């Protein structure tokens, strides 16, 4: 039995736990569910009947540092789903670092730790002989890293561009189609649960910039930080300016790009028939390959679709472990 722990039992954590208990992947069992205040440990492994709706109020909840699940050796694989902190990567950074040091494989959707300490964490994983998978950090459920590493590995990536933030794409789409001003489109996005109460990371382009940093480090062998990205958000974009673009058969999109060593996020004019011109909360990522040419992936970049990426990483790790044990 592979014992899995999940730190972060919010929307994503609950969805993931639900799918994992239903799918029963290769003998994986969820034995620990944790949040910043403590954890719930169930050595037999939770199943769909006893999966709690809330862990803090549970009678077996142990109020403690969640790192205790590592110190006590209660899990073999840890999933971290903590709030985004792009400035110091915490608390996710410590959870991931300690897990790797303990020889525990990690699957994460946390951008912060990877933006702050990508090389440190990947080197640590290598030296400990464990896996660190982060498909869910960019493009939600779109298989960006696995596709690039497996299906594109014989070719060479020349540049990467993308619509990497669903919130701003939704807002700009509403401005384009309905002529809404930005503040109204933002309120609508907040009412629909697409934007945070504090939307500044999205609107100012920081969230997209984080994803650009992760893409550059993971796929182009770079060692970049957030401060290496030239960032301009959409706060000054007006519906009149979008109308002016529309008259030319274009619209304005927040585009992140890695091109010729330059990392940037900025509002750009995009032709309506351009592959990156996706609307609503969709994400799109375009690779320019030396042999293949342009390849564009489009998909839902947030919410439940992210669980697909988490499951893919978990399944991949389990398959690798099975193969190494000769149980193919």
């Amino acid at each position: 039995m592979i014992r899995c722990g999940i730190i972060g039992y919010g929307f994503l954590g609950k969805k993931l736990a639900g799918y994992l208990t239903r799918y029963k992947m290769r003998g994986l069992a969820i034995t620990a569910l944790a949040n910043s205040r403590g954890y719930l440990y169930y050595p037999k492994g939770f199943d769909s009947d006893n999966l709690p709706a809330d862990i803090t109020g549970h009678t077996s909840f142990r109020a403690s540092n969640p790192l205790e699940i590592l110190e006590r050796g209660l899990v073999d694989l840890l999933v971290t789903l903590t709030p985004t902190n792009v400035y110091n990567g915490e608390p996710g950074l410590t959870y991931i670092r300690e897990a790797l040091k303990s020889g525990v494989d990690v699957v994460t959707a946390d951008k912060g730790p990877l933006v702050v300490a990508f090389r440190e964490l990947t080197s640590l994983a290598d030296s400990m002989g464990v896996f660190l998978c982060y498909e869910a950090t960019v493009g939600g459920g779109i298989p960006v890293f696995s596709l690039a590493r497996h299906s594109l590995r014989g070719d060479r990536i020349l540049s990467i561009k993308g619509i990497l933030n669903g919130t701003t794409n939704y807002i700009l789409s509403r401005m384009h189609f309905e002529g809404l001003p930005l503040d109204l489109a933002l309120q609508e996005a907040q009412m629909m649960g697409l934007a945070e109460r504090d939307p500044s990371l999205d609107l100012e382009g920081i969230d997209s910039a984080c994803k650009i940093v992760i893409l550059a480090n993971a796929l182009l062998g770079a060692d970049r930080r957030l401060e290496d990205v030239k960032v301009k958000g959409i706060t000054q974009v007006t519906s009149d300016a979008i109308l002016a673009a529309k008259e030319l058969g274009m619209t304005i999109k927040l585009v992140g790009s890695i091109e010729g060593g330059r990392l940037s996020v900025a509002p750009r004019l995009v032709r309506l028939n351009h592959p990156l011109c996706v609307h609503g909360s969709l994400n799109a990522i375009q690779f320019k390959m030396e042999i293949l040419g342009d390849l564009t992936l489009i998909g839902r970049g947030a919410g439940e679709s992210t669980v697909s990426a988490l499951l893919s990483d978990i399944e991949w790790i389990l398959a690798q472990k099975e193969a190494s044990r000769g149980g193919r």
Partner: protein
Amino acid sequence: MRIRLTLGLTDRPGTLLKALEKIAMNGGNIISIVHNREQLTGGYVPVSLSVEFPSREHFERARAGIEEAGIPVLGTESLERRIETVIIIGSLSVDRLEKVFEGRGEIISLAFGGGSRSPHMRVMFSVNSEDRERVLEALEELAEKNNCVLVSEEA
């Protein structure tokens, strides 16, 4: 890509032919040749060629070949112009905008919108291909200095 190449030829028979061979070997299609005999400078006769190359790499190889053959390349200039549009959100003086294009391109049309509350200008311009990046960088710098946002076109 279309390039104007100015070569310095010595007044000896066969020198031009050597250069033309290097161009042909790299897929260059010669559009015109102007031989300025009366402008003899430093012992060279400047010869101006307009050539269509399949790509910049082909042009660079031809140029290297010409120089290796001992023929100096006195100058190169892109004859390709690009027409682009940008939207500048915010308020900016047209004089300052025009300065960006001096010697590198020209503004084809300017359209203003958004009124005084949320002004923007749509700028259509033509620019020498090789100056495109520099013009966009200068526009971005100008926009930032004036608290505006430059929205340029995604290729």
